[in-house]
């Protein structure tokens, strides 16, 4: 394989990772506020279909993306209302919506199956595109891909370097303490759930208008992406930069599955296509193992020198979830 082809493939990984990056950042914001939005798998499918539909009808990519965000925000509002206001189980509501939105997407999308729609083309950035290697990799992408890359930095800065970000960490970590300091916990949780949902809703049309153009019903191949986004959120330790790394890793594995296909004829191609999904989940195992009791005991029994190194490695992989994730907040 020539270097050019590899470079072309890796640029494709950055592009096909874009929707996952955006969705993961959305879910990271939501979960940082202490709410789990489990509906992602359905939301991505529904927003992908509706975004595509709107783009076809209006012949405008912008309205397509906007429609996707509205869908994501609406579904997130249902999650927020039932879990924050009505105090129903977040997991239950999210799961129901994941299934219902998926079926709704397949039902409503039936008439537009196979339609031709607008496709987002790439826009090269002058001068930067001529940098060897990097230019091809990063600066000959579509507008949404640039936005996804910028978003990683913005989200990181927002969460860790600004006052509202500090407050966001507070309402997810110790809502009672944040409340005492004057934060309106319920309102902020609503806000971040809806904003996060809107971002997830942006990921859908990004598939149908750019990465995998068109709506093809059940064979669109987006079923499962939402679940992976949830896993990558954990893998990323609720940190946008690490989460983006996870998203690109997943996109890379998917590409690898395609590239290796001709060389691994003994494995059915269908297996290689689904392989990245379990691999990503296995990655969770490494991230979480350090938190378990037996691991702590094992490490404690190691000789000093090895132990220090083991602890260091484990700490660097570990991720700790926001303290109040998934629990409703009650004012006393």
């Amino acid at each position, binding site marked *: 394989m020539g270097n050019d082809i590899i470079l072309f493939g890796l640029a494709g990984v950055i592009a096909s990772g874009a929707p996952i990056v955006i969705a993961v950042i959305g879910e990271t914001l939501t979960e940082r506020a202490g709410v789990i939005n489990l509906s992602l798998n359905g939301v991505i499918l529904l927003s992908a279909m509706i975004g595509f539909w709107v783009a076809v009808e209006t012949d405008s990519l912008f309205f397509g993306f906007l429609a996707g965000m509205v869908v994501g925000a609406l579904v997130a509002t249902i999650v927020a209302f039932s879990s924050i206001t*009505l105090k129903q189980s977040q997991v*239950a509501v999210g799961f129901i919506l994941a299934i*219902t939105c998926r079926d709704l997407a397949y039902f*409503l999308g039936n008439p537009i199956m196979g339609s031709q729609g607008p496709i987002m083309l790439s826009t090269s950035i002058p001068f930067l595109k001529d940098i060897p290697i990097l230019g091809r990799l990063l600066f000959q992408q579509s507008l949404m891909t640039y936005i996804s890359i910028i978003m990683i930095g913005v989200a990181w800065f927002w969460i860790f370097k600004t006052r509202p970000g500090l407050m966001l960490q507070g309402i997810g970590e110790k809502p009672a303490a944040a409340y005492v300091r004057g934060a309106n916990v319920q309102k902020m949780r609503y806000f971040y759930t809806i904003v996060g949902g809107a971002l997830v809703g942006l990921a859908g049309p990004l598939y149908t208008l750019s990465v995998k153009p068109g709506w093809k019903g059940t064979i669109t191949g987006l079923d499962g992406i939402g679940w992976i986004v949830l896993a990558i959120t954990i893998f990323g330790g609720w940190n946008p930069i690490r989460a983006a790394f996870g998203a690109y890793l997943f996109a890379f594995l998917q590409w690898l599955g395609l590239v290796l296909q001709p060389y691994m004829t003994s494995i059915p191609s269908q297996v290689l296509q689904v392989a990245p*999904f379990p691999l990503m989940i296995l990655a969770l195992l490494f991230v979480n193992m350090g938190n378990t009791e037996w691991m702590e005991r094992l490490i404690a029994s190691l000789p000093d020198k090895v132990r220090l190194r083991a602890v260091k490695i484990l700490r660097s992989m570990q991720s700790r979830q926001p303290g109040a994730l998934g629990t409703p907040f009650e004012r006393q």
Partner: protein
Amino acid sequence: MNKSRTRSISLLFQLGGLVFSLLFVSIILILVKSQPLEAFRLIWEGATGNATRISSVLVVWVPLLLVTCGLLSTFTTGMWNIGIEGQITVGAIFTTGVMRLFLETSLSPVLVITISILAGMIGGAIWAGLAGVLKTFGGVNEIFGGLGLNFIATALNIGLIFGAWSRPGVASMSGTEPFPEQFWLPTFQNFRVSIWSIAFAIIGLVIIYFMLQGTHFGLRLKAVGKGMKSAFRMGIPTWQHMMLSFIICGLFAGLAGAIQVTAVYHRLIPSISSGYGFMGLMIAMLINYQAIWLAPIALFFAALNIGGIQLPIVLKLDSSLTGVLQGSLVLFVMISQGVKQKFLGRK
């Protein structure tokens, strides 16, 4: 407030949920320029119109009931066993694999079927046990461990259908080579449903009902579900009970998979679990995790599934509409429950 009044208010809110979901689906149907009443009538007739259709409903009802029975066990210990789909699939894979081993032997078909079904149950239990191990020893939340195992089960299933167990010459989405007829669970003459699978479903329901309601073991599972720490202090070995609840669930899911192979498809197909696992999760939520309403609600869901088949044939609508109806029903019942709790201030 007397008890019967509380109960009737509760029922009222649940019916409210049903009405809202029907309204919601009607609005969607009007949006796609269809007649809601026509669609509902079609679904109803598609499920009850003649004896063949009713028997098809039962074909769906059996695995749905078994799967939900299993889920009641994991829900009792507070676990979200999303890995249920994979557990059904692995059950079906084990059943098919073992049956393939014994096809050429002189063992009686009855014995082969029995061994294969048992193998399926063990397969489901192993897969559920893995989700439990990931949770207990790997610190992986059971939702994500389960999802990962679902993906692996799917890959394994497709790999076998297109690889090692492919039909000679034509490996395809239609599945593996069908088993000879003597290895099928016997059905009523021309109908698709087997009396044996119905018997399994009823026995399963009775077992799970009494296990959860009437035994000390069921009580301990509940204690673990209510709160890990306090149950541990009471001297109940918590993680062992959690693992057991997973394994019990896996046995049921594996049985459902085994029935799909031995009584319904007579071979392994790519979508062998038919989404029954996720539907089972919804049913469990709708019946508020109590076995008492399981049989009729599962029958209702099964009827919707079979009735929905008519939608694409007659009205050119996608059959996923019934999924929307089922999902919105569970959602609206849950929301109306929440509204009741919030504004009437009762649990």
